[in-house]
């Protein structure tokens, strides 16, 4: 049985379609990533799947429980770490854990040892009696993850788990997610707008853009689905009008796109393409201001499937559905 089954989920806020007919399944013990810029609809999708927001149409089954008809079953099956910190800053780490354990009905005889084990696993045991308000962002995120596991859920949702964290804290959270995958039988669904995070953590990735599912596959297959194995990025001066057409004729080049005055050449052989490019530029008296070659990344995949760079999409998202959650 699939751990998560999403069927034609739609969420409208008036005229705005935040989630537009999304369907996918997540297998048991899989780490599944929802990748997309801010405002793509990831959080709305998560909120529908966690019963926080009713869908306009469609449904989802979480560990076999339908979000429309069995919300309690869904809540018991899920551990959720929302994007915003929801642990109480005026309580200690231990108190936050205890109260959530009680809200989930964790038996009193197992509560204490379980909480200690979880706090140890997130390296917060020595801060168990410290007020959460004194924690750094990374510590707080680790506490939220421990708290999300307090009722031993079968599925864990992490909504942008590393947003706002410094690089060291991000690495810690990644390590923790990997450990959860390796040492438990959890199915993990995470949303992120970081390519490297999705690439390093996820077994499969769904690319979400403007509320729609643009692509879904393993990171390697997604990369393979873009033309070429390497990407040559170059910036030119004095380029003639037909310069892009000429670039397409270069050795091993499969496709050429331009974004922000930077040409992206998808190539089957990066070094060979660079050599041919330099020869052509010399012959045509075109100045090569900058050139680099790298393997295809998820950024290129995102560009390929959505037509825009993820970083730009993140910064230029035209709407922010968070205002509808108030």
């Amino acid at each position, binding site marked *: 049985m699939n751990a998560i089954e999403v069927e034609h989920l739609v969420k409208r806020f008036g005229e705005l379609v935040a989630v537009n007919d999304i369907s996918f399944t997540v297998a048991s013990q899989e780490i599944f990533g929802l990748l997309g810029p801010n405002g793509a609809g990831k959080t709305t999708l998560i909120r529908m799947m966690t019963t926080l927001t009713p869908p306009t149409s469609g449904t989802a089954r979480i560990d076999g429980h339908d979000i429309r008809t069995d919300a309690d079953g869904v809540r018991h099956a899920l551990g959720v770490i929302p994007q915003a910190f929801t642990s109480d800053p005026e309580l200690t780490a231990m108190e936050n854990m205890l109260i959530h354990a009680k809200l989930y009905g964790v038996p009193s005889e197992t509560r204490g040892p379980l909480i200690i084990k979880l706090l140890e696993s997130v390296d917060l045991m020595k801060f168990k009696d410290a007020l959460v308000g004194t924690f750094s962002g990374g510590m707080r995120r680790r506490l939220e993850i421990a708290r999300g596991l307090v009722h031993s859920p079968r599925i864990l949702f992490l909504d942008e788990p590393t947003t706002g964290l410094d690089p060291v804290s991000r690495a810690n959270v990644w390590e923790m997610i990997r450990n959860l995958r390796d040492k438990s039988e959890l199915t993990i669904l995470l949303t992120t707008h970081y390519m490297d995070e999705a690439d390093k953590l996820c077994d499969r990735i769904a690319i979400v853009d403007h509320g729609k599912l643009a692509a879904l596959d393993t990171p390697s297959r997604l990369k393979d689905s873009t033309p070429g194995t390497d990407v040559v990025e170059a910036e030119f001066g004095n380029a003639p009008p037909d310069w892009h057409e000429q670039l397409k004729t270069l050795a091993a080049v499969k496709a050429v796109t331009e974004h922000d005055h930077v040409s992206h050449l998808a190539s089957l052989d990066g070094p060979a393409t660079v050599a041919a490019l330099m020869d052509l530029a010399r012959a045509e008296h075109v100045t090569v201001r900058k050139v680099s070659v790298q393997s295809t990344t998820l950024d290129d995949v995102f560009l390929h499937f959505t037509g825009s760079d993820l970083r730009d999409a993140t910064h230029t998202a035209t709407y922010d559905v968070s205002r509808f*959650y108030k």
Partner: protein
Amino acid sequence: MNFERVWALVERDMRKFFRSPALMVSSLLFPLVQLIVLGYAFGGKIKGAKVAFVDQDHSVLSRQVREMFDGVATGPATFRVVDYDSQAQAVDDLRAGFVRGVVELPQHFSQKFYDHDRPEIAFSEDNTDQVMASALEGELQDIVTALNAPATEPRLDGQVELDVVEVYPYIEYAKYLLAGSTAMAIFIVAMIGGGITFIDDKSRGLHEGYLLTPIKKSELVTGLIGAGALKGLMAGMSIVIIGGMIVGIPGLWDPVRILYLSLVTLVASIAMISLMFVAMVRVSDPLVPRAVFGVLNMLLFFPSGAISPIEGFPKWLRWMSVVDPFTYTVHALRNLTVKNTGIEGIYMDVLLLAGFSALMIGISIGLFKRQI
């Protein structure tokens, strides 16, 4: 209903309450200051008001009247007399606020008195201050009654006299106000706990954490109201005890009385916090409860009879007092603090407050949104 979940929310709020003295201090400080300042500023007997005395008669009788005024000045000391030669100057000083009343014995006052020709003492008062005016009028009326009394008492007195029996010893206004100040403490806790903290927690995303758990909305509302009620009970009883000691309530430590006071304070706390929930359950903007605090205080506190009797209100204000939970809180607490009645003096108020609470909790649960 899962009471472990309900209690988890109560436990959360109580831990925060004991950890942050701000709520405790703010819920106690204002009612105590109100009790002390308002309690001793209002309701005291007027003493030492300056009254101008203009004697234009200059007779033996007018000197006797003047001595009667001196008697008041040295006795109850409601006023002290300042002699004026000019009636016009005295009235000018009355208008300017230098004296609070002008007594004038006109020319031929004594002659008219002995002729039984309707002698009159003129009293000009500053009627912008009703409390002062009525106190001075009362004293002057006593003097006039004494003047009118016959020199020798008739053997058979046919005049009707009012025999006033005071059921309770004299109650200072501060004691009278204690019930209102206690209700105010409960209201402040309800406002902060049920309004401000609730919406702040919502806007900080803390509620989202609870909504993700299997907790039912009836459990969430009951837990939050339960926590607020416990805080209200603590604040209310603190004011009853501290305020009671300050204003001097006799027999304050009687266990049965404490039990009844706790009962009233608890049901009043539930009533006010659940009322606050109904008002705030759909509000998201943290500024709203702060903005309406003063208005709600005005609408609930003053019509309740906390500072003056409801019977003195206009009809529309009396109707407000009927639906105001403060009214029944103040009535029951006053019965217990100043009259020391037993259960018979409070049971109706307790039942009404309990019924009001049940209604408000039901509405709160109905209005509470389990989804965001």
